[in-house]
């Protein structure tokens, strides 16, 4: 996994590709952890947009697929550690669904590294920084989503 701060600020502007990464994260652990990273001024690349849900259990597999269909280059789902879910077991149920999404991606020829589920607790600000850095680095390596290319 990438170390925090292990990224370069890329050149931006027309002609430069910028990854579109969607993060759907739970309110109690990962969103709090991401806030903690802010308080600690842990720097990570900005190429991720966050949608907050109360629990990863809320995340319909279709949300992830919709994001890819809409042209996302990567999706990150992040919740509480197992056994630590604010709603007891929402993250277990989410993880099951997300494995299904990964299998589906493989079978339709979409690199499943574009989709990741992680577990970041409310006290793991530094880990959040690492996770996002790593996700962005991986997506940069993989390049634009084939679905966007296909649409063109």
């Amino acid at each position, binding site marked *: 996994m990438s170390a925090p701060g292990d990224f370069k600020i890329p050149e*931006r502007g027309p002609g430069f590709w910028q990854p579109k990464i969607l993060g759907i994260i739970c309110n109690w652990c990962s969103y709090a952890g991401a*806030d903690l990273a802010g308080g600690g*001024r842990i720097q990570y690349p*900005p190429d991720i947009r966050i*949608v907050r849900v109360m629990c990863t*259990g809320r995340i319909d597999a279709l949300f992830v697929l919709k994001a890819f269909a809409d042209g996302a280059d990567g999706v990150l789902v992040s919740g509480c550690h197992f056994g630590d879910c604010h*709603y007891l077991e929402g993250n277990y149920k*989410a993880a099951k669904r997300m494995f299904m999404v990964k299998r589906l991606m493989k079978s339709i020829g979409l690199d499943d590294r574009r989709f990741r589920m992680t577990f970041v*607790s409310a006290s793991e600000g530094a880990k959040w920084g690492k996770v996002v850095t790593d996700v962005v680095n991986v997506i940069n390596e993989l390049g634009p989503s084939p679905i966007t290319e296909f649409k063109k």
Partner: protein
Amino acid sequence: MVEKKKATTKKTDTKKQEVKKETSKQVPAPAVGSTTKQEARVGVFLCHCGTNIAGSMDLMAVQEYASTIPNVAYVDNYQYMCSTPGQGKIEKAIKDHKLTGIVVAACTPRLHEPTFRTATKEGGLNPFRFEMANIRDQNSWVHMHDREGSTEKAKDAVRIAVAKAALLQDLYPKSVPVEKAAMVVGAGVAGMQAALDLAYAGIKTYLIESSPTIGGRMSQLDKTFPTLDCSQCILTPKMVDVGRAENIELMTYSEVDSVEGYIGNFDVTIRKKARGVLTPKEAEARGLVGGGCNGCGDCDAVCPVVKPNVFEIGMKPRKAIYIYHPQVVPLIYTIDFDSCIKCGLCVTACGPEKRAIDLESKDEFIKVKVGTAILATGYDIFPIEKKEEWGYKRYENVITSLEFERLICASGPTGGHLVRPSDGQTPKRVAFVLCAGSRDNTGIGKPYCSRFCCMYSLKHAHQIIEKIPGAIPYLFYMDIRSFGKMYEEFYYRIQDEGAKFIRGRVANILEDKETKNLHVMTDDTLLDRPIDMEVDLVVLASAIQPSDDTNRTRKLFGVSCSMDGWLLEAHPKLNPCGTTTAGVFLAGVCQGPKDIPDTVASAEGAASAASIPIHMGQVELEPYFATCIEEKCAGCGMCVNLCPYSALSLVEKDGRTVMQVTEAKCKGCGTCGGFCPGGAIWMNHFATPQIVAQIDAFLLGGEQ
């Protein structure tokens, strides 16, 4: 009956409306709600947060962009949106521009969502028509050197928030009554203080303690720094108060078995472990008037089984039927059924009048209902034998501070005479190793400061000088952290009394095989020279860690922990006693290392916080319930099994099987909504169309 029917028809009406809204929202045209709802008009307010936000991004570019987003009717910015003038802007704009939704792009909803919801309400809108775009904690603070990147991210964040705000609905929090009772888990000094405060405030309090007596760690200590009060002397009056308080229902030798419900209405099952001895009350309940244990100890005298006493850290024996020490509250003996051989001698000794002993007793389960709960589960000593270089458990004369406390305590196993475990001699040269396992980044010890070891080691040094003429304490330290009231003065006093301070982390301790003396090896970092000091006794000021059962208990109550296992407070500075689970509070060391004054203060804080909902009488629950869109529901029942709270059930309605939500049980996680194959579950405030709109807004630019 008629009323009921009316209510159900109303409900289905609103559900129909929701369905209509939902379908209309999926239409790419500007969102037009059903019948009476007008077009979405969203107001966007950008916060500079001084330079916190404005310093890292081009906020004016974000504002300019925001005004081009569909459904945005008004855009403004202010230095501090959370200030009174900032909130005033929201209120005024709602009225002036007939806004239907509010977006504030500022810090995090975890901080200021309540503030801006109130402002939205003041402006005349339903408070749930507010959405926050996090452009500080998850943007300007974490992309400080990427101005362009953070500006782009802020634009997207605003667009995503506007997409949701345009689809937000009026929601009404549900008020629920609060049970006028509280629970405190753990009866150390923190739990006792919290329970006393609650009880004196007129609240029925269940105090649950897993060991046979209350008192906790503090009852094991000899003296307390810096005043040198005798620990038991100041603690026992409190223990007696707890035993006598009318409003406290004390349950020792008991554990929390399961927790259900939510703030105001926790249903807690307590497992009362088989104690084998009846209290006078229990005896009376069985018809033995005047019976039950009176603490005489006749059973103890005849019991043939000898075991180490945990309270004395194994340095003194106890019987299979035992009390920890003479001042226990309640003064009721306990049978250790793991070692009891059921010979029955104690039953005979107890006699036919008391008949207090029941060798066949079983665990009992008791259900209680409480409004709020306080966790005060305390700490254990880090198993310092893991730091092999200091030889604990290998060398007889290396002991921990807690063992020192018992050895120097007049009621301890040696009657207060400090002796070397190897030969019973009085030690003259005693080394204290501070930060033993604390501030340790090797991965074996704990990275944090255990916070009270410096001070109690100073106290130990004082006690040695006081009790043993000619004895010299040597303190091996990294830094002396004497931060409390009168602590630094105490440090100077101990220096003046002749204690020797050596600044250096102890690298190694070796034992002289013949004399059993110890060689403490370190580097004196002030004099820059290596030291090999021969001493008679080594005391390790061992780190502390969350008590054994903390992890199990916290999961029952849905409380998170930080990386080192201490329970996580809602906010480290502004809500140190609260947790993210409404109605559950933290007191004392379970939240992080604290000395006794801080522990008591935190307990009083927790008690005060826990009493507020009870005194208010009712609390509002966030209205994030699931509802069933009955037209879409196929009655498959997949959701029923997914719900962790058993809030969902299948019912027959108009000849069809549909799902029904018990709102009081639903906590709004949305696990059902995330799975429903027919999309028939509407999660308030996190509805599928709202989330999909957010995804679309990000990836398709909001134009859909």
